[in-house]
């Protein structure tokens, strides 16, 4: 037997019943969900939470922390997302190892929540390493490239 789904109308009904009572909160737990409806000042809130315990592990694999060699600078993404080396599939990459860049040079794109965010070099110099693969999901603390400052 599966749980009955709770509709928005059911939530309204629960609030209506609680409003007329002395209770400030109601906890419901089934095999599919946990729900707490509680008083919040003049109004009410609904808070859903997973049945299984959760921890803040993030979804993408954590990149191993890379040692950046002496005298090099890291290029980091503006946001977590998907790393792309070229403006479009099939197009030439923004930069290759050995290319000279300045602070405003766009070296890659990170797609976050369907928006394309340019990655700027942030420093003048030469690209030494490209450390992420095209199309790879990356976290915000990932080193994408290293630059030898000019």
């Amino acid at each position: 037997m599966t749980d009955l789904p709770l509709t928005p109308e059911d939530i309204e009904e629960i609030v209506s019943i609680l409003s007329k009572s002395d209770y400030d909160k109601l906890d419901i737990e089934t095999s599919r969900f946990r729900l707490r409806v509680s008083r919040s000042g003049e109004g009410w809130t609904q808070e859903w939470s997973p049945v299984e315990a959760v921890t803040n592990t993030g979804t993408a694999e954590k990149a191993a922390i890379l040692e950046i060699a002496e005298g090099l600078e890291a290029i980091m993404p503006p946001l977590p997302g998907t790393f792309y080396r070229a403006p479009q599939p099939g197009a030439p990459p923004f930069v290759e190892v050995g290319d000279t860049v300045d602070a405003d040079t766009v070296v890659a794109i990170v797609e976050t929540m369907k928006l394309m965010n340019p990655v700027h070099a942030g420093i003048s110099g030469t690209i030494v390493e490209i450390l992420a693969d095209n199309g790879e999901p990356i976290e915000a603390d990932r080193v994408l490239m290293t630059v030898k400052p000019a």
Partner: protein
Amino acid sequence: MSFDTLYIANRGEIALRIIRTARRLGLRTAIGVSDPDLRSRNTAEADEVIHLPGTASSETYLNIEAVIDAARQSGAGAVHPGYGFLSENSEFARAVQRAGMIFVGPEPNSLDAMGDKLKARAVAVEAGLPVVPGGEADNAAQAAAIATETGYPLLIKAVSGGGGRGMKRVDHEDLLQQQIDMAMAEALAAFGDKRIYVERYVESGRHIEVQVLGDGRRAIHLGTRDCSIQRRYQKLVEEAPAPDVPADALSAIENAAVKLTEHLGYKGAGTVEFLVDSETFEFFFLEMNARIQVEHPVTEVVTGIDLIEQQLTLAGGAPLGFEQRDIVIEGSALELRINAEDPAADFAPSPGFVARAAWPAGPGLRVDSHIRSGDTVPAAYDSLVGKIIAHGADRSQAIERAGAALRHLSIEGIHTTAPLHTRILEDARFANGAVDTRFFEGFEHG
């Protein structure tokens, strides 16, 4: 229903929304989930979960072969595509049908006709609807040629797009190349089709759309929605019905939508979007979205009709269960889109771990959200974390309820558009009635 298992080819709040109606109708639900969605609320709620390995949409929710395999594996008799992803992809709809399942949406030829903005425009002209000047461009030179016809500012749109993705306003020819490159890249990433379309930018327009239902022979409308409050062409607040439109203009717009729907022999739920001059109420056909819309709940709460149920029934081949006179609009409703974006940092995406998600509850309130306390909002998909729908006996009560709802909303761990909604609801222009699509420009700078 002629099927007992429904496969949901989507994620997020809309997948949960579909599960809810499917279960009420006694259907078994199955869903494919990507790596980041393995621990999502949809995984907990669906009767069967199939893993679509990978993170990127192109490997998972946009991967036709993988989705069809998963649907087959679940033994589904029908596939609901939700919105976005494969919802308006006729190749997908045909693949679903070839696999012996029902596609919960219009016939593939309607998707072909409406999914491509250029064909849609031609069909609309054929059906006798007015359209905005413009045309398709593959590169900046072609766009410049069309621009001589449309003038500046102009608007670039993704041919396969919808929901404002890949849409850019260009004020001067010098900026055309750069904007086209970005628009094409975004269109390709979001829809797998980089073609773009250039059209005249109407300065003082309102975005008014009509919800329609068709059974392939006959069509009706479920009234209008006003979606003029947009930022970067992304809708932020939607309301039903569109306020402050004279009755004759309103019925002209609604009737045009029904005319197009019948002209197409359209089957299912759809939305016909219009650009309406806020002074003269002259209107132009923009596009038809051949799917359920993000903002469908405002129509549901003012009409009392479950649009997902209508989609499932019509897809199963049933005739329309309503006459136009059966449709009654009661009161007024607003929807606030709560996105994982930071209004204080130019709306930068704000994915991550949600330590607490306390959504409002109470009279006239509906919350459609898949985000629970302890969930993670992935960076790989869109930023919508939930929708607050407020229904009132009239517009001012709906606004008041929406405002109170925001005061009780508490999302911790990520930034959201909630503070922006508070400011919108407090804005005198909005409180006093209809606004145009420039609302936000005036708002940001003033």
